[in-house]
C-alpha cells in the first residue's frame, strides 16, 4: 500500500517536471538548490525525450502494478512481484545516475530530482515486502 502512495507521489513530481519541460508551468518552485540550472542543462533530455517523461512512465508502471497487487486475485502472481522489484531496481539505478550528474557534472541540485530519487529508494524498499506478500502462494 505504501508503495502505491510513494509511486503516486513520484508520478505527481514527474508530471510537474514534465509540465515545466513543455513550458506549461512558469518558474519552478525551488526552495533549495538551482532547479533551473539542472532543468535547462542538456542532461534534462535523452535525445528528444525529457527525462521527466521517463519518470512519468516509470512511476505510472510502479503505481499500476502496486494497485494490481492489492486486488484479491493477484495473490500468487509471479509477474507483479517481478515487475515491482525489477521496476524499483531500474528506477533506483537511474535515479543514482541522475544524482551523480547533478553532483559531479552539472554541479547544481534540483530539489525535485532529489525528492524523486528519495521516493524511488523508498519505493524499492516498500516493494520488497509487497512483492513477497503477493508472491506467496494462495
Amino acid at each position, binding site marked *: *500500500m505504501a508503495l502505491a*502512495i510513494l509511486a503516486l507521489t513520484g508520478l505527481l513530481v514527474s508530471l510537474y517536471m514534465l*509540465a515545466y519541460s513543455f513550458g506549461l508551468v*512558469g*518558474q519552478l518552485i525551488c526552495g533549495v538548490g*538551482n532547479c533551473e540550472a539542472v532543468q*535547462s542543462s542538456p542532461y534534462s533530455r535523452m535525445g528528444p525525450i525529457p527525462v521527466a517523461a521517463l519518470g512519468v512512465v516509470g512511476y505510472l508502471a510502479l503505481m499500476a502494478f502496486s494497485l494490481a497487487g*492489492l486486488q484479491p486475485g493477484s495473490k500468487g502472481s509471479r509477474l507483479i512481484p517481478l515487475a515491482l522489484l525489477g521496476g524499483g531496481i531500474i528506477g533506483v539505478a537511474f535515479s543514482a545516475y541522475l544524482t551523480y550528474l547533478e553532483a559531479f557534472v552539472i*554541479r547544481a541540485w534540483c530539489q525535485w530530482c532529489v525528492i524523486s530519487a528519495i521516493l524511488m529508494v523508498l519505493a524499492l524498499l516498500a516493494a520488497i515486502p509487497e512483492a513477497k506478500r503477493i508472491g506467496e502462494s494462495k
Partner: protein
Amino acid sequence: MSERQAGGSLRGFYMVFGAVALIGIGALGYNLVSKAMGTPATTLVNLEEVRDDMRLLRDMAVPVVKGDPEAPVMVVVFGDYLCNHCGEFSLRERPRLEEEYISTGKARLIFYDFVLDPTPEAGAFLAARAARCAGDQGRFWEYHDRLYRSQITWAMESDKLGSFEEYGEDVGLDGREFKACLNSDRYAQEVSANWEMARALGLGGTPAVLVGAEGGMSRSLPNYYFETIKRAIEEILSEAAAN
C-alpha cells in the same frame, strides 16, 4: 487478517490514495492555470547570486546551436534583436557563413542573446524570449530572422507582444503553444544568464563574434563581416590540418 479487516484497511488506503491524488492534481492544475493566465516576463531575472560563479553561469547560459556538433570550429555570436548590425549579420552575412561552413560541417554556429537594453519598454528581452519560444517548435532561426526583418516596425510599436504573436503565425508556429510560452516567464532565466555571461566576458557591444577551435580558446573578431569570419575559420582549419 480477516476479510472484514482487509476490506477496512483497503478502504482506508483508497481514501489516503485519493487524498494524495486530489492534492497533487490540484496543485499541478493551479500551476498550469496560473501560468496560462500569466503575464509575460519582459525583463531580466535577478541572477546576482551566480554573477561571480562563471562555472554556474556557463551552465545556466543556454545558446542556440546550428550545425554539426563535431565541427572543428566554433563561431560564437552574441546578438541583440534591437541592434541593426546584428540584423545585418543575420540577414546578410550568416547565410554565406551557413552555406560555406555550417552546412559543410566545418564550423558550428553558437548564438547567445545579449540584450543591450533590457527594459520592458524596449522589447528586446521579450523578443529574445519569443525567438526561444519559437525554438520549442523547431523554428528558432526562422523567427530570429523574422524579428530582424521587421526590427524597425516592432521597435516602434507599443504592442510588441501583438507583433511577436503575429510573426509567430508568419513562420508557421502553433499559435496557442507559442502564446502560452510568450505569456509566461519561460526562457527568462536563460536569456538573463546569457546577458550575465556576456557581461562577465567583458563584451561591450553586439554583434560580438568569437571564433575558436572546438575545446580551445576563442578570439574576438574586430567585426562581423563574412570575410573576417572566413579568414579566422580558415586559419584554424589550416592549423588543424598542419597538426
